[in-house]
């Protein structure tokens, strides 16, 4: 689980580094079109992304807490 998490973090970081490095490449165009999409309709999409990240973060925290309590329960049972 920890390895998978580390892999995901590194994967996202490397993609963003790659996207920033290749200005004018296809990646940069993709990034630009994404930003332009987000800017439409009074920029409400950006608010949605921000709140969605907070919700996901909240659930990730709940998930970790759940696992920690499960581990404690197992330890006590032994």
């Amino acid at each position: 689980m920890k390895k998978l998490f580390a892999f995901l973090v590194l994967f996202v970081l490397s993609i963003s580094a790659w996207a920033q490095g290749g200005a004018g490449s296809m990646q940069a165009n993709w990034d630009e079109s994404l930003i332009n999409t987000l800017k439409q309709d009074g920029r409400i999409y950006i608010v949605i992304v921000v709140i969605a990240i907070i919700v996901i973060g909240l659930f990730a925290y709940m998930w970790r807490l759940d696992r920690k309590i499960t581990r404690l329960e197992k330890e006590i049972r032994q």
Partner: protein
Amino acid sequence: MNKHWWKILALGLLLYTVIAGFLKKIPYFGQNAETTRNVFFHVPMWFGMILLYTVSLVYSILYLRKFNAKHDARAQAFAGIATLFALLGILTGMIWARVAWGSYWNNDPKLIGAALNILIYSAYFVLRQSVKDQDKKGRIAGVYNIFAYFMMFPAIYIIPGMMVSSHPGGEGDEPLMVFKMDPSLRLIFYPAVLGWTLLGVWMANLRWRLEMIKEKL
């Protein structure tokens, strides 16, 4: 993974609530304008609160029948999270009221009822704190919890329903305004209620498990 499906469902429902709730074109009702979106966030706190207090009631009754400490811990945890939802409902409502009705607290019957309800359940927690013996604590708290639950409905629903209120559902309104809600709002409102409630269930779940661990240490 399989027994965790409802946690993933809760995440999905809340993401849907947030995304659809902000993207949706809102039908404007009077001066409410965009604040009608609060229906997806403020109102589910109250619906979730009632559902969580109901779970708490069920566990209190189970405790009084079987005297299993786990049931008492569950009753306490669910009542706690429900009260948190009530406080969040009051706070979000105050902000909305300041804009819609001109003041943070306008002594609307629903507001007084909600405050009364929080006081009624505060007594539940005070009662728990004041009894040392675990067995006695569970019994007294269980009995009081049943009283508290059936005091909640007159406080937040029946009495405000008989009076003139700025809230929907006051005198002259249909008693259950939610069922008259614009169908396009309901499509987001019900998933929102389920999502927030499931998150509350998860929080209560962690709470009572922690309580059981504490007892065994």
